[in-house]
């Protein structure tokens, strides 16, 4: 039930600018109505993207939350890797990790001018 509450909060903040503003003003206060553990509250306040991924937050919900926090794409991917490295495999759900921690499957295209500049 607790993971459900984490995801419910994220679902609601992802689609509500009013809740986003309230979260920005007081992160702990907006979480009070939700049935969350201390670990989950800390992860949502930080935000600890790696821990949220590890506990099983659906990747689509988490991706939108990371975008709200202006977390750049490659940084977002790395934070999830770090979460798995620190806490272990995803606990539940279908959004898991199947590649190795150091594996990269979507490299940023290296522009010709960057190669020439080296």
């Amino acid at each position, binding site marked *: 039930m607790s993971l*459900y509450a984490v*995801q*419910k909060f994220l*679902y609601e903040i*992802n*689609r509500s600018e009013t809740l986003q503003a309230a979260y920005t003003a007081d992160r702990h206060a907006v979480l009070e109505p939700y049935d969350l553990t201390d670990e989950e509250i800390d992860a949502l306040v930080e935000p600890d993207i790696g821990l949220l*991924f590890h506990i099983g937050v*659906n*990747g*689509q*919900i*988490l*991706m*939108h939350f990371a*975008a*709200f926090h*202006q977390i750049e*794409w490659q940084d977002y*991917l790395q934070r*999830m*890797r770090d979460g*798995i490295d620190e806490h272990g495999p995803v606990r539940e759900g*279908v*959004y*898991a*990790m*199947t*590649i190795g921690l150091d594996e*990269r*499957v*979507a*490299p*940023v*295209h290296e522009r010709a001018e960057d190669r020439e500049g080296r």
Partner: protein
Amino acid sequence: MPLVFAGVCSHAPGITGRSDQADPDVRDRFYAAFDRMRVDLTAARPDVVVIIAAEHFANFFMDNMPSFAIGMADHYDGPIEDPGWLGIERQRVPGNRELSQRFITQVMNGSDVSYAEEWKFDHGIMVPLHFLTPGYDVPVIPVNVNCQGPPLAPLQRAWTFGESIRAACDALPERIAVVGTGGISHWPATPDSGKINVEWDLDFMDRWCRNDRDALLDYDDLTVYADAGQGGFEIRTFITVAAAADGAKGTVHFCEPIPIFAVSCTIATYEI
């Protein structure tokens, strides 16, 4: 009025949000294919575009998750994502509540659906509209197939849903286009993002072009998850369009992997 257009396209958020990180050659050829789809869609002169997407918890959650839902409003807003992150500014997209109601009433003759008078668009609809109706001047009827929160409707139910959509199109006087959006194999929004099973994708699109019902339904979620990732569940939207095309044969105009976009970027249409 019979269906005037049927096609499918990718909707991954990286297509607009991370365009600067893709190989420009393959990216630009993909964008060109998207633009040709826009030209073909426009030439069909649709009164409304029924856009069959797999949304990502923008409107529906596990407290009340419909397998199939259809929008019924005069307008829709999106994207819900940060506009800078997605690369698409917030828009108000026109709908048609009265037409939606007539459409849904017809669909319900063959399939149970939820209707929604509120609907916020996420990348699953906004990315395709960005390319296909860039002026946001064609009314849309949004359709969602739950591809996110298992248990998911079996594939044969997606097929039946497509048949119900086609019957609704045939029963109404308006010129209706159907566009399905989604990925084929992909592992989105995880560190696996960019992993693509190209062989699996091409085989699926071959079945889609042949409009081979038995072959399209010859998957189960366990093997799809193993071979095509959790994103592979979105084949339900493509299968729905195949059924709506009612035996028409298809053409793949573009299907190449662009890892930074997380999918085999795909554009395909049926000969209606």
